[in-house]
């Protein structure tokens, strides 16, 4: 093995999240609450990528996520690839897909929205006609998903 390569032991059971844009890595970590995990988590940051220039990767041992949990990732990093590993084999590989609802992750842009003035989770619906827009379940404001802010310590609903 060449010395300049990253040495990471292979995962026997768990989840690999690859092709994370480097500027979104820490949001992905917060979103999945990796900081609270007790199992082994390996995080690669600023790695070379032929496809992306630089990328980040997260390997999480002994943890499998539900579709609903993983699909919430699409809000911060829509192009990540996921691999589910069992007994050192990739048993499933897939992309995340945009959920119909986004709960507790993003903040409403409307300062007069109840969600910005009351301790409560937010909820957004993806606009059918234009999936780049989300509509606040409470105040009904439609907003561009790229312009909404991520809640600093989001909780998955």
């Amino acid at each position, binding site marked *: 093995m060449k010395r300049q390569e990253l040495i990471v032991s292979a995962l026997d059971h768990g989840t690999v999240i690859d092709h994370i844009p480097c500027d979104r890595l820490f949001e992905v970590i917060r979103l999945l609450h990796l900081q609270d995990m007790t199992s082994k988590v390996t995080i690669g940051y600023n790695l070379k990528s032929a496809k992306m220039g630089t990328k980040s990767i997260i390997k999480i041992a002994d943890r499998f996520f539900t579709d609903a949990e993983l699909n919430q990732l699409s809000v911060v990093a829509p192009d990540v690839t996921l691999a589910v590993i069992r007994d050192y084999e990739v048993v499933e590989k897939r992309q995340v897909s945009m959920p119909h609802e986004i709960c507790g992750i993003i903040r409403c842009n*409307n300062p*007069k*929205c*109840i969600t910005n003035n009351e301790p*409560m989770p937010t909820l957004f619906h993806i606009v059918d*006609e234009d999936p780049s827009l989300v509509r606040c*379940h409470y105040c*009904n404001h*439609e907003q561009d998903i790229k312009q909404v802010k991520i809640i600093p310590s989001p909780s998955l609903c």
Partner: protein
Amino acid sequence: MENRSLVTIADHTREKILYLLAMAEQFELHPNRRILDGRVVATLFFEPSTRTRLSFETAANRLGARVIGFADPKVTSGTKGETLKDTIMMVSNYADVIVMRHYLEGAARYASEIAPVPVVNAGDGANQHPSQTMLDLYTIYQTQHRLDNLDIYLVGDLKYGRTVHSLLMAMRHFNPTFHFIAPDELSMPESYKLYCRKMGIQYVEHKDFDAEVIAGADILYMTRVQRERFTDLMEYERVKDRYLLKLDMLRKAKPNMRILHPLPRVNEIEYAIDDDTHAYYFQQARNGLFARQAILCDVLGITLDQVINDNTIIA
């Protein structure tokens, strides 16, 4: 338990709207009853709105319910930092239904999700005001004897006026043609025009506001052009009188045409029009009572049949 709250008129089907109008019609025939005897209605006004509050409280009182609540947010614990949730949970212990006005958008939806009793939205910021829409629909039905295939002219502030937005959404079931007449700064937002196209609602935009344009109207729905909506006050001074309705502009109006206004009026309808047969805004305000009586009964689970066969009517 099924949540019977009324948060937005957009939740209601054509059948449900017609059902509520039929119920309001019964209350117009006999407004004084004891059908809500023993019930307690809470009116929580986190933002003052005297006319809406009096209308709801009159509706409750004339049906025999008792009313608790506050009209001035300064007296509530909200000013001490209590959350809306805590206030709603506390009041739910006392009342059978909560009528709420709030300055924050989405407050009514949230309250309806957490409250064990039904919530009636009496206005949440710039968002929704469904009881106003119900009384508008009732008034249109009362004056035109139908809701289908009408030419409805919306005049004034079409950008911020939530009453016109709610009316537009509620009328989607009835194949209307809308006509938008507004200054550029207050024109109908693109999102609502998109909504019209999606729902197959026809609309026409007019530059002029004169007798020729008004001649096609079944309903002329006037709204207030508010000075504070303008960033450029010169522009306000320039346009404010252009959307003033004057008596001579009605000379070509259809006989069935009626002028509505959510009130308060400032200067958008000439006072001379008040005595004209086309003027209907004061009767419209009176209809708020019947529409709200129907809303209160419906959220409390009282059916149209029960209202028709009601033996608590006070002659």
